């Protein structure tokens, strides 16, 4: 299947039976063109960022792959990182359209990323140029203190999150500690809208708030962040004391759980 004349040793090889998963993650990250692609021992991490105020991360664990080869010369904890053009990679993965083609990724030091797709005997080979990696912002969310954390069942959240007013520039998120209430508010020239979900709702499986949260975010960023809800099983909202919002989706692919998260900085409004 390998037609490349590269005789070098590949540092990483990853085979996936179905490229749809990979394509799905890339699509949700496709709000910016530069993709930070990192191969690690444990899987692939993809990151995109917009002006340092909005970041999306996708983790594809190695269990998702039929075969994941990590070269023995690589040390523990070492990462192979590079930057590439996301639309090009997405085009390459989608070459067979919606069919379930199998995917084979191969990376050799200093060479373009090699991508093969195979569907019913037809093979496509794509080389995607890679560039020097850039450093994504480390929002330090994992270690940071959390003001509030809410876990939702994603199934019905799609209709709720998809209903946001299209004309509104900002979305306000309010979490009331005492009333145990989660609120999403939008304002526009044609009216105000408030969506309220109390802790008692079946949609919320976990609700904890150390203090009241009242933060405003740019609507078009949140809309991007709400898109994966249709594909997810669970979604969590976490807010830091600074107002950093982290929306994390758990997407189940068979037995394996993968994660997609969006980190959004708050905005200041003139209100």
């Amino acid at each position, binding site marked *: 299947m390998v037609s490349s004349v590269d005789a070098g040793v590949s540092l990483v090889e990853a085979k996936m039976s179905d490229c749809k998963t990979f394509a799905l993650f890339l699509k949700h990250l496709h709000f910016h063109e530069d993709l930070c692609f990192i191969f690690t021992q444990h899987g692939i991490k993809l990151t995109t960022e917009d002006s340092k105020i909005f970041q999306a991360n996708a983790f594809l664990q190695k269990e998702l792959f039929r075969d994941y080869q990590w070269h023995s010369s690589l040390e523990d904890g070492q990462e192979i990182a590079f930057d590439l053009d996301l639309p090009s990679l997405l085009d390459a993965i989608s070459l067979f359209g919606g069919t379930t083609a199998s995917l084979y990724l191969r990376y050799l030091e200093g060479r373009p990323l090699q991508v093969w797709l195979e569907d019913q005997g037809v093979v496509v080979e794509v080389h995607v140029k890679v560039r020097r990696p850039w450093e994504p912002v480390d929002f330090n969310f994992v270690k940071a203190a959390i003001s509030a954390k809410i876990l939702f069942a994603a199934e*019905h959240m799609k*209709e709720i999150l998809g*209903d946001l*007013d299209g004309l509104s520039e900002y979305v306000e998120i309010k979490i009331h500690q005492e009333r145990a209430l989660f609120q999403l508010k939008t304002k526009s020239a*044609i009216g105000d809208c*408030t969506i*309220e*979900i109390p802790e008692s*709702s079946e949609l919320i499986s976990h609700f904890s708030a150390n203090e009241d949260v009242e933060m405003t975010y740019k609507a078009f960023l949140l809309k991007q962040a709400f898109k994966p809800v249709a594909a997810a099983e669970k979604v969590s909202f976490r807010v830091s004391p600074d107002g950093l919002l982290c929306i994390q989706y758990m997407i189940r692919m068979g037995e394996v759980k993968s994660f997609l998260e969006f980190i959004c900085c708050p905005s200041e409004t003139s209100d």
Partner: protein
Amino acid sequence: MKCIIPSPNVKVFARAIHSLAKIGDELYLVPQIDGLALRTINSSRSAFTSFLFNPAYFSVYDEQKTSDEVPNCKIIMRRAVAIFKSISQVDRMVEAACIQIDPSESQVRIELRCKFNVTKSYVVPFLEADTVKAQYDTSESSNHLDIDSKTLSSVFDSFLQNQEEVTMIASPGEFKLKNFIEDQDEMSRRHAVSTVFTMKIPEFQSYAIKETSHVTYCLKELRSFNGFAEAFSLPLSATFDVGGKPIVFALSHEGFYEAALVMATIDENSATDPIPVNTGERLLSHVEPPPKASTQREPKPGKTSHLTPGVTPILAKEPLNRELLTPDVMAEMSMDQGGIWDIEGNEETVPRSPPSKKARVVFKRCFDATFYPQNMTAATRVLAPDSDDDDES
């Protein structure tokens, strides 16, 4: 006014709004003793639709009239449609809808109580106040027919989706519906596709035609109105006269809600004009004398022209100092009266020559009651940068 719509009825309300949205851009909410009316009028003022939801339709209907004033509640249609965006979602998720009209704050509050304890609240501000009411007297109309909405829908399928007007030829023995081709040059007329749909009397639920009439009206609005009727398997009734007089389509779900679509029709006598004109006359607003005639202020119960044939016209809300128009006066007025009804405002009811239909189509936005800059789809692409540069000294 406060009212609550229980679960199975919310989707009817949502469908009514969708139907109204296909006709007009502004939604009038008029709380009355006999129910909540939703009304709209199309941009060329040739079609008026009104849905009346009776108090029995609601689980709570509290008119809360604090004064004699009927609140003028007009909101932008787009907002109403956005709130009830998806009929299937409304059906699945919404358990109750609470509507509160607050004249003191000039806003409408709509609260959707959904499954899983989720609440969606919307606050929509009023647009500048005016009212719109159609006045017509169906008791004098010579022709009436009732037809199943599904049958009518299949008739419409025979016409092109973008067909603007149709001509209905109802004679005692036969019914025909054909597409209306505007008087254009000979060449275009020869190449236009002509569709004629003929129906026999047994296909109607009732058919009482006293005199043959040719009536031409807009198909688009009727399609939308019939769409609502079809969704709930309701029959449609049509009451009409000759061309030039309005045609009224009505539906009702006994005791719960009823609706009417009043449309202007083209006067066949003026069909020889190069550009046909909408001359739906005899529907001028019957305006009030100054407020001291207080007994005439309120629309009297049972006298709304809403759906019952033979009912007297609704009295429009008063601006002051208008001449009281009696039916005799109206009959004397020229057939060229433009528009069916007047929108209250500061304009006078001076007969004016109606804008030509072509102009209405081409300059559609100029006939809109209001103009929203965000609706402009015209070029947002800047062809040349500003010549004034702030940085230049």
